[in-house]
């Protein structure tokens, strides 16, 4: 399956991309996708904490936060758009 991953805010600097296309084999989950895109320890450190998702990171699958789906176990489908960014909190 082919997915589109969109990075926003400081994740653009960390992943050195605004968006990227990722091909995964069937039955892939959000965890599989994140394992694929985190190529360096620095990138991994932004996303994972002890094998689990870092708290507060925002991951939307087609506009819906994965915390309202099945978290890292959320299944992905061909054509999905996954947006990833840290919360911007300031005002």
């Amino acid at each position, binding site marked *: 399956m082919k997915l589109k991953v*969109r990075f*926003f*805010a*400081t994740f*653009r*600097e960390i992943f050195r991309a*605004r968006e990227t296309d990722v091909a995964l084999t069937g039955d892939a989950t959000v965890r599989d996708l994140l394992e694929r895109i985190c190529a360096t320890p620095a990138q991994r450190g932004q996303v994972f904490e002890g094998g689990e998702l870092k*708290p*507060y990171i*925002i991951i*939307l699958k*087609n*506009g*819906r*936060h994965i*915390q*309202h789906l099945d978290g890292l176990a959320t299944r992905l489908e061909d054509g999905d758009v996954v*947006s990833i*960014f*840290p*919360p*911007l*909190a*300031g*005002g």
Partner: protein
Amino acid sequence: MISPEECDRYERQMRLFGREGQERLKAAKVLVAGAGGLGSAACVYLAAAGIGTLRIVDEGAVERSNLNRQFLYGDEDIGRAKVEAAAARLERLNPDVRIEGLRRTIAEDTVLDLVGDCGLIVDAMDNFAGRHVLNDAAWAKGIPFIHGAVEGFYGQVTTFVPGRTACLRCLVPVAPPRRAFPVIGPLCGIVGSIEAAETVKYFTGASRLLENMLLMLDGVDCVIEEVPLRPAPDCRVCGRERTRR
């Protein structure tokens, strides 16, 4: 009724939405939650546009480190209550607007009282705990909640409308801890200005709103991108209502 002086003052915008639209702005009461960087831009444009009543809530006093972005204030305001300095500045800008400055903390036990009979909430907060409380109050009252946030060279803005869109808890389920954030003033200005534009559009019905659409501003590459949002069916604030419909 709109006076001849008001017709003169608002002439350029009344070309867009007429006397009727201007009357609606005059009848409107808006809560601006926070009088910092976002609040500076939102308050100035809302007061200039002729919103009838602006209720501004902020617990803080002006600090020197605010002045790179919070242009409601000047050097002479350091130490003064923000809501007091803001009211003085905005009354000078447009004496027709009623300014209610409240030096209060927005919390679960105060928010409904602070929102009162305001017809819309502008999010100009600097933390998500406060934003969640405002989001829940907007849903309880059935009024729009314009969300904005900034950090570094980046910003985000969207319009939440009860019964029509996702809510802030769909997008940010857990509030990150409060901390000092880096930011440049112009990003606050852009996001706060878009929040003011959404408010004017809502009351006048002049144009579509940023419903279920998160705008992400990238001040490094100078681009603004759209991220479509979908409500979460299990969201504890907006979800139940949606399954009932």
